[in-house]
């Protein structure tokens, strides 16, 4: 750890653990979806047929349970099929959301390209990143105008069956819920501190001068000049940025 340069190594380390712990917890939930989906799809494939959208309804009890258990953090959960996976529809999201009034509902999207301008979901980071890298991904913060119209993080992981990509399992964390979760730990850090995603987009912050959604450019250069200190959040692709203390900079 860069304790010599950091403002307060204990509070910084605690914030890093908090961020990483919260999002790893979401990934644990997603892992359940991955496993159950893979088992379901393998079972159907064993019957010598292709899955249909109706088969995916079997994920419903798990997804409902996830949303009620993790209500403070997760607002949407499900499986998004690789186009062409299902025999009855070209594309499908088995996606469940908690509405503002607390009710859990399926999201029914118009995926017909003749009537909907938003029928192709394969370019969204939450789908494209796990598909191209084979790795789990944190996408956002971004305005999710496909599902919730909320400013969100979407965490996603690939579902692979017989070595082939079948789609992604994912969960939505609204940014306000993320901020409520990590805010106290960030505010305990002395001096300005904020989290940025790999593109330099502020995700949460303890200062009004760097608000969520703004872009911070050239952080690596600022770190090289000793103006800020960058703390990776373990295996989560967010970086905690803190101000370097004037006295610590040689």
């Amino acid at each position, binding site marked *: 750890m860069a304790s010599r340069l950091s403002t307060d190594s204990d509070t910084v380390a605690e914030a890093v653990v908090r961020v990483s712990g919260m999002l790893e917890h979401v990934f644990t939930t997603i892992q359940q979806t991955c496993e159950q989906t893979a088992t379901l799809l393998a079972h159907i494939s064993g019957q010598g047929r292709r899955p249909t959208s109706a088969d995916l309804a079997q994920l419903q009890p798990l997804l409902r349970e996830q949303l009620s258990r993790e209500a403070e953090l997760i607002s949407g959960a499900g499986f998004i099929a690789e186009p062409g996976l299902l025999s009855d529809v070209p594309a499908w999201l088995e996606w469940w959301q908690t509405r503002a009034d607390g009710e859990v509902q399926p999201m029914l999207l118009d995926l017909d390209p003749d009537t909907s301008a938003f029928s192709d979901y394969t*370019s969204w980071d939450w789908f494209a990143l796990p598909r191209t890298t084979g790795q789990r991904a944190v996408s956002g913060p*971004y*305005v999710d*105008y496909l599902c919730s*119209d*909320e*400013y969100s993080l979407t965490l996603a992981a690939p579902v692979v069956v017989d070595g082939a990509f079948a789609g992604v399992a994912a969960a939505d964390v609204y940014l306000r819920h993320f901020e409520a979760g990590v805010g106290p730990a960030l505010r305990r850090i002395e001096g300005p501190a904020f989290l940025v995603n790999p593109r*330099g*987009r502020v995700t949460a912050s303890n200062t009004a001068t760097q608000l969520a959604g703004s*872009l911070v450019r050239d952080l690596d250069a600022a770190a090289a000049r000793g103006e800020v200190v960058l703390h990776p959040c373990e295996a989560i692709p967010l970086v905690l940025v803190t101000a370097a203390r004037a006295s610590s900079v040689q």
Partner: protein
Amino acid sequence: MNRLSSAARRAIFAPLDTEARVEAVVRRLGDAISLGLLTDGEQLPGESDLAERLGVSTVSLREALMALRQQGLVTTRRGRGGGTFVRAPVENLHDRLRQRLQAHTTEELRDLSDHYAAVAGGTARLAADRADKHDLEAPSRSLRDFADAVDSAARGRIDGRFHVEIAAAAQSSRLTREEIRFQTEIGPLLCLPFSQAKIHRTADAQHRALFDAIKAGDGLQARTLAEEHVRDAVRHLIELRLDETWQAD
């Protein structure tokens, strides 16, 4: 502290008159059907459920449904499997939109244009500040798709998508929702003029200029261009509204 006179309070909390509420329901449902948000053959919720959702009495709702039946926008079937169903055959879509446009006065359209331009302008300015290269990939695809789109419905859909993507690039969920609300309210009307090749080309050029200003991080230019784009679009609508030959045919 309560400074309202008791008479004023009574006026504020007096029930809305029934006629106004019936008219509001006719307009809300009529717009949704004309704009294609409720589709042909779709069954409306039951009368008591619908009345409760809209916050009107069942008496008012029945009057509204009767008016919609007279306009040919819904039909009611009795007995088992009965109910109220949307009547909006695709082949009449253009006529319905035209009727809907004529239901708006030019003053209403002007005011809508002011509101939409304020939102679109502010959104574009923020997008110029906040969008990174990645945020511009989606609107960049929409630019190409819009230029290639052949019919006015597809042009309208992609135009709408482009503007939602710009709002999302501004990183504001409120402004994105507001953009979506405008499109729900007026989107299908705004795409009426897109059937004219010249208007389609102009809109395409305006999209490109707006996109370039956002990409260059020029917030003021982006705001000006977005405002002009909205004003132009609504001006075309007002011209259609005022064009008597178009109304008559």
